[in-house]
């Protein structure tokens, strides 16, 4: 399911036009992004949790050249699905 199919399905279920649906989805995602920027996690019931995690800096070694590299710390978005979603997947 790509974005277009997703939007089409959502538009059909919610009763808005596809363009409106796309705009609204973008607005919701923007809001999610804002909360991520503030470091808040977003909790969606019956779906899962989006949260920002900090990956610490680390030194990696290139096995070919033995060159050591320092990878800087970074913030990544992590998604943890709810148990119910996991169960559904494994039952099906």
């Amino acid at each position, binding site marked *: 399911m790509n974005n277009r199919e997703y939007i089409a399905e959502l538009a059909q279920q919610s009763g808005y036009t596809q363009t409106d649906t796309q705009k609204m989805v973008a607005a919701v995602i923007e809001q999610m992004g804002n909360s991520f920027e503030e470091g808040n996690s977003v909790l969606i019931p019956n779906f899962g949790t989006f949260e920002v995690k900090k990956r610490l800096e680390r030194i990696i070694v290139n096995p070919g050249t033995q060159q050591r590299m320092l990878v*800087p710390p970074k913030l990544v978005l992590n998604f943890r699905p709810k148990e119910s979603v996991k169960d559904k997947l494994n039952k099906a």
Partner: protein
Amino acid sequence: MSKIGFKELSLALVDKYGLEREAAEQFVEKMFDVLSKGIETDRQVKVKGLGTFKVVPVASRKSVDVNTGEPIVIEGRDKVSFTPDSAMRELVNRPFSQFETVPINDGVDFTAIDEHFANVEEGTEDIIMTDNDETVTEPITTDATKQDDKMAETSEGEAASGATNVLGTQPDETASTKNDENETTYGEGIDDPSTHQGGTPKETVVAAETVVSDDEPIQITEPMKPEESFTPVAPGSESIEETTPNEANGPSHPTEETTNDEQNEVSESINDAAAPTNATSEQTNEDQPRPTSSTKTTAEMVQTVSETEREIDDARNQVILMQREMVRHNRFMRRFLGISAFLLLACVAGIFYLAMQISQRDHRIEHLEAAAILASRTPQGKAILNASVDSAAVAQAKKDSLEAARKLQEDEGARQKMAEAEQAKAKQVEQEASKRGAEQAERAKKEEAAKKANEAAAKQKAQQHKPTEAKNNSKEQDKYNKDVRIRTGAYTIIGIDRTVTAKAGQTLAGISRTQLGPGMECYIEAVNPGRKQLKAGDKVNIPKLKLKKKN
């Protein structure tokens, strides 16, 4: 690090698109419903701006039961993997976006740091902590030459800490101050919440009030950890608690974790020992004269601190909610203002339009009035003048006619008189010459009467003849002009000009050419109907032509 649900997300829709709150919530719920259904059915969903959700199968693998030590097989299962969109990834990572992966030069080695950690294992806690922090700062700057300098600094820091120890100040405090210093240098480029982690425990211990006042938003949840650990553990453990948050900041060194563990062990052993140094440190730390009650007071203070912080948290949440409300109110207000401004504009425009219309109407009325006045002045006056002139003319005519009538009457009267006079004269003459010329007079009269009668009759005849002649002419003309060629031609025949006698060998066409010019045969033909062959001595009528006037 608070959590937000889809209610907060739906607020964005309410704010941005003016949706009903319930509708917005339903929409967000639907959004994730469709998402999870899509994951179930299609096993992959891509959402623009957010990322890709994918179901990834995990193969079964062998493992060992942790409790029993038996080898077990963990069943394969499906896992939901989420890959954020590049835009979202960049957005989330914006605070650290300035960092890049850098190669470490060959000259750099961490033996010195390793040595420090070795020292840590043997040495005191405060040295561990300073070392820890220094190791954190070093890899960030990551320049071989600088690092060397840093090493020097580290040793200096060590010396400093050692010196403070020698001087007899509280080791924890120096350590934590060191922490602060180091971490501030670390956090300068990063804006990291954990910058304050190291500082908080110290502050909570030293001055609870300052914590309350100086706290920043990110710190709020942080002190909970120290509080938990503070209450049950002996005063010596404070330093451990301080080290643990620092661990998070300094994993760059490969051996760090192990050293940290060792460090913990060391500190724990120290705790178990409950050395008198702890008591002394407590004394200096708290600046309280009674060492026995110090732990309790700290615990209490920390508790109160946490309570106040909770209160602050609540207040902050309330403030956030209020701000949201304010934002929405603002939005409403803005919309209301916009609508009112529009209405005002519309009103002004309407009034202006009306005024224009009224002024235009006034103009038109004025114009019409002026026109009416002009019209009443000019044509009516003319009419009046004309009428007066007419009436005058009529009166004059009437007068004229009256006068004429009078004159006529007078004339008639005079004539009658004359006639009477003549008759009288004639009578007199008759009477005088009744004898002589009665018969002659009578004859003469008769003759005159007869003459008059004849003349009258002739006149009458002439008058009668003229119309008949005219009638005949018109009839002839009509007859001549019946021909299509003449009706459509340039001339009309108004009569017979003359008659020509044809000579031998002459034709109508020839005569017309000689008499009227080329192309005029039709007029000759029209006035000589039925004649086609000419013989010598035939009379040919030549018509009198008149050019038709262009109307």
